[in-house]
């Protein structure tokens, strides 16, 4: 009797292995027989996930060439709309105007947030929303006003094509002004290195990108982590979108489906985001 159970259990486990093995190669199988180039550009937060996915696909199918460019969400929409790239990544949902103008199809594959970050050496770790608005507008310009050292606050912001900036401006600053004397950096990665190197800097970055080199700042008591974003506690949330002009076909379709597949979701998680849906 015992033996039967054991055999049955083993059979189940074995078949699970076989089935999942089939699934994993099946996810990439969609690329079999495809060749050609896939061009991706746009949001900088998406790049680590794009690079990982591209690497796996290109390793398995040497005939496929995937190129990834940065530029920010504005570039993504513009280039996919003009037909310069196949997939345009954005960190904000394209406006209705943009969707209508370029006949965009929007595919969301992750949930992310935008969090305020400071240098790990900074002892300020929590701010209220009003304080954040004042700091970024330039009304508060010394760390001692918010409980830190007596040093000037160094502001870092993103360029105008950035979706991260758009989301932050809308949701965290309530469309308030960002001081014109803030330093401008061009991507999430650049924001991270800038704040990591400047002990008195403050900036905002995609939550999935936050690691040990920068310290997240709690907004109204909620620390921006991917967990609080998922639970809905951290309000400055946004999706990561890949947009195509019209319905995607061929290689483009296969890539987008790959992002939604199990392996794709694992890559998204590894990137620090929450797979969506």
């Amino acid at each position, binding site marked *: 009797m015992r033996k039967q159970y054991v055999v049955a259990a083993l059979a189940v486990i074995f078949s699970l292995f076989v089935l999942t093995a089939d699934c994993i190669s099946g996810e990439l199988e969609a690329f079999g027989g495809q060749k050609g180039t896939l061009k991706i550009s746009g949001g900088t937060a998406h790049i680590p996930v794009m690079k990982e996915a591209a690497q796996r696909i290109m390793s398995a199918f040497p005939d496929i060439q995937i190129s990834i460019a940065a530029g920010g969400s504005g570039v993504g929409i513009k280039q996919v709309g003009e037909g310069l790239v196949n997939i345009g990544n954005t960190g904000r949902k394209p406006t209705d105007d943009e969707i209508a103008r370029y006949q965009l199809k929007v595919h969301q594959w992750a949930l992310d947030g935008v969090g305020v970050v400071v240098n790990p050496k900074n002892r300020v770790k929590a701010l209220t929303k009003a304080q954040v608005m004042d700091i970024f507008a330039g009304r508060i310009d010394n760390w001692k006003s918010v409980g830190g050292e007596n040093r*000037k606050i160094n502001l870092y912001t993103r360029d105008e094509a950035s979706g991260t900036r758009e989301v932050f401006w809308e949701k965290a600053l309530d469309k308030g002004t960002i001081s014109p004397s803030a*330093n*401008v950096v061009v991507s999430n990665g650049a924001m991270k290195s*800038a704040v990591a190197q*400047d002990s008195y*800097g403050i900036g905002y970055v995609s939550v999935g990108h936050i690691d040990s080199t920068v310290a997240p700042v709690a907004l109204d008591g909620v620390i921006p982590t991917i967990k609080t974003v998922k639970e809905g506690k951290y309000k400055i949330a946004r999706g990561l979108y890949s947009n195509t002009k019209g319905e995607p076909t061929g290689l483009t379709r296969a890539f987008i489906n790959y992002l939604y597949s199990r392996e794709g979701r694992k890559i998204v998680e590894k990137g620090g985001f929450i797979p969506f849906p």
Partner: protein
Amino acid sequence: MNNWKERGIEKIFLLSTIISSSITLLILGFMAYMALPLLRGGLFRLLTEPWMPQQGFYGIYPMIVGTSVISLLSLLIAFPVSLGCSFLISSIGPKSLSAVFRRIVQMMTGIPTVIYGFVGIFLLVPLIREFFQGGSGMCILTAALMLGVLISPTMILFFCDSFDRVPRSYIDAADSLGANRLQTLLYVILPSAREGIVIGVLLAFGRAMGDTLVSLMIAGNSIAEPKSILDSVRTLTAHIALVIAADYESPEFRSIFACGLVLYLFITIVILAVRRLAFRKSEERA
């Protein structure tokens, strides 16, 4: 038969020349064409308004200030040092050392700009930040310092060249009157090479104005008008690199062509000034 071949080849050469020169004019044409809608809205507005696209201001004034201040400051830093170095190479240093130093300076012209920016970010920016105990370190001063190092080799080589071109007879005359090397340099060579020095400075100024990477990586790129040399600032060139991403129809996008136009015209003025000076000098000589 031969004549026909000769004429043919000459026509081919002429054609290449026309193609090459038309590129210069095409560049000007494209800049003007793309910036036209913005220019039509008011040239004065474009050149004096701040850059705040969300409020509808597409002026490039802060960037013009940024470029001017960084270039002038870098020139201010580089000129004395370059002059001193050129003195060293042409007169004051012992022969072998001068030759070695000249090689070093020539080698410096081969260093890529991106390397200056790269080292600037990791070496100079933290230094300035710590030294001044404030600011992010990415400011006019840092960019001007790095840019000064960048343009020094060109200025030094140019100055040395001008010194070398002073007619031999002047130097012999000074020699026969008993002047030593330094005195010859200060009282004979320097005054004659005056125009050469001015030309060198103008060319270096043009180079400093046209540099993109150093200011993009080190100057901070903020859109405000700078109030002190420790302020973050954006140059015309960095603005082009940053805004290239925008919508093709938008005024923001057109503003970068306006920046390109301003740079183009500025450089043309510098080149024309240089030519006038060189022409006057050769006339004087004759």
